[in-house]
């Protein structure tokens, strides 16, 4: 798999800001988020709860909640801004694997009917073609009895099998990009590994790009070749996964990885708490908790500074902070 991809990225998020009106004021959930998923590559967005991962996903999938506004920025999918120019066809071209396989399928409809409805709207061909495609995909995700699975209801599958169904559904309309939202958190560890392997294998085989959202560095390392670390609605650091995990530059990323290099994001080792989205600190959003912060960190939000080897970090003092 290529690291930076050839030509234009399949998805690029540019200076995206998303605000949501709440009773407590305007929540600036995302602020100036920029990253790109290279064609054929796999990018992981990593961050703890409340960092804006879900809102980012919903912006990309075109399902922002009521009261959400996009004051600036763009989400370019195959060079078209899908926030403003969402042709119906873009839907099928972005496959979605949700977080919880137990809750994401409608309990009162047969699995086949649920997916055929998506294909009816977003894939060419007849219903018969769609059925054949689905059965073939069910076989590819190693579902037992692929032919019979169409007529079964969700509760007749195990959790791992349901996640396989959802992976198959994400591939059903021949997408260019697959978006996965922590697809293994609801599963037990052995199933997790199988599902991740399968996802990786299928996207590689089919040359698909993958946007993978997670809070788990271990999972990230297993699936993604690029990473964007999100903190409080901003990208703190981005670059090739191996390089970022081995030698993080942003103080936040460094502290996270120092806490639990191979485990889920856990802020026990970092003093303070994630700021509320309605009360973000000025300047660098991490500065109140940063051991290396200076007076001017509360001034202008630091932009992403390009480093060598395709890396970028949103901290002007990352080199000095290293020493401290």
């Amino acid at each position, binding site marked *: 798999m290529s690291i930076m991809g050839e030509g234009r990225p399949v998805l690029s998020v540019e200076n995206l800001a998303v605000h949501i009106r709440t009773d407590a004021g305007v929540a600036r959930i995302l602020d100036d988020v920029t990253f790109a998923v290279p064609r054929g590559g796999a990018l992981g967005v990593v961050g703890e709860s409340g960092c804006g991962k879900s809102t980012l996903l*919903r912006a990309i*999938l*075109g*399902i922002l909640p009521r009261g959400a506004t996009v004051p600036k920025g763009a989400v370019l999918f195959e060079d078209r801004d899908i926030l403003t120019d969402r042709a*119906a066809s873009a*839907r*099928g071209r972005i496959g*979605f694997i*949700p*977080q*919880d396989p137990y*809750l*994401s*399928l*409608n*309990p*009162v*409809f047969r699995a086949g009917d*649920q997916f055929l*409805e*998506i294909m009816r*709207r*977003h894939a060419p061909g007849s219903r018969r073609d769609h059925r054949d495609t689905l059965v073939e995909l069910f076989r590819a995700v190693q579902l037992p009895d692929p032919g019979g699975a169409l007529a079964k*209801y969700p*509760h007749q599958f195990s959790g791992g099998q349901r996640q396989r169904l959802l992976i198959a*559904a994400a591939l059903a309309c021949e997408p260019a990009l697959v978006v996965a939202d922590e697809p293994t958190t609801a599963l037990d560890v052995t199933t997790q590994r199988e599902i991740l392997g399968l996802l990786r294998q299928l996207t590689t085989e089919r040359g698909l790009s993958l946007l993978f959202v997670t809070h788990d560095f271990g999972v990230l390392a297993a699936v993604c070749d690029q990473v964007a670390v999100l903190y409080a609605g901003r990208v703190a650091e981005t670059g090739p996964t191996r390089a970022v995990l081995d030698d993080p530059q942003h103080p936040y990323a460094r502290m996270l990885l120092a806490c639990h290099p191979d485990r889920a994001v856990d802020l026990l080792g970092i003093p303070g708490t994630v700021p509320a989205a309605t009360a973000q600190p000025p300047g660098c959003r991490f500065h109140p908790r940063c051991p290396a912060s200076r007076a001017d960190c509360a001034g202008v939000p630091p932009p992403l500074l390009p480093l060598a080897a395709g890396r970028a970090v949103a901290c002007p003092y990352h080199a000095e902070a290293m020493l401290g």
Partner: protein
Amino acid sequence: MARYILRRVLLALPALFGLVLLTFVLTRVIPGDPAATLAGDSATPAQIADIRARYGLDRPIWEQALVHVKQVLTGDLGSSIFSGRPVIEEIGFRLPATLELTFFALFLATAIGIPLGVVAALNHNGPVDQLVRLISVGGLAIASFWLALMLQLVFAMEWDVLPLRGRVEVELGTPPLRTGFLLIDSLLAGRLDQFRDALWHLVLPAVTLCLPGLASIARFTRSGMLEMLQKDFVLYARAAGYGRFRLYAIYVLRNAVTVTVTQIGLLFGALISGAVAVEAIYDWPGLGTYAVQAILSADYKALLAVTLVVGVVYAAVNVLVDVVQALVDPRVAEDIR
């Protein structure tokens, strides 16, 4: 599925048996001596005793109950002690009238209540939602006899667009009775004029009767939809690109109506008891008016037969509701096993 239906039917039988016994005891302990009523005001004590003996009313109550149960089991509901005709015959004529009215009211309540609930939920706290809230409070609060009088006043007296009372226009006559449902029989006879006539007569009573049911169906559908709209599978379906109409009107609604369907079963009981008042006001020749007559004349045979028939209909409707529910939600039938 067949097993599930059989099970639901078998579960209804003890309830019906209990109904037969309980109603018998109730009719025998309420004040009023059927023998005295039957014998008339000028009867001598000897004549009353004679009648009492003829109908077995002098026996111990448990013996009377056993005889009653035995008769019911052999399909003999006895004769009206008032008219002397077999009650089954009298009910056979009146039951379809009541069923036509209640089913039509139920149809109206469902056909209007469910879409109303869906639209309200989709416009949560919007103007339509407020309107539905008003209807659902009003529908339960307005007394049906008042509403009936107002509808008669406006539509029959003032505007003269709908008939005031009754089930048919006498000059038009009735189609040959096959099902007893005039809407169906008139169509079977190919008489569109009679169909129209039956429908026109049905409108006001059915609207009166359906309002409380419509209110609760709209309310349950609304809250069911609101609950389901929060579910992850709705978000997934939206992300996957379902069409809006299909998503809400089919995909989410089917989950939301499971509660409503149960509610419809319970509602049917309220409809039948509500029909008593509505039939009286609109002069509808149904079971309700028959039951009222039976009560006033202490015709306990007729009364027992009416309660039993209504009980059987109610049980049947609820078995039907269970079946519909299992069709809507496949998990229902499996959990029972």
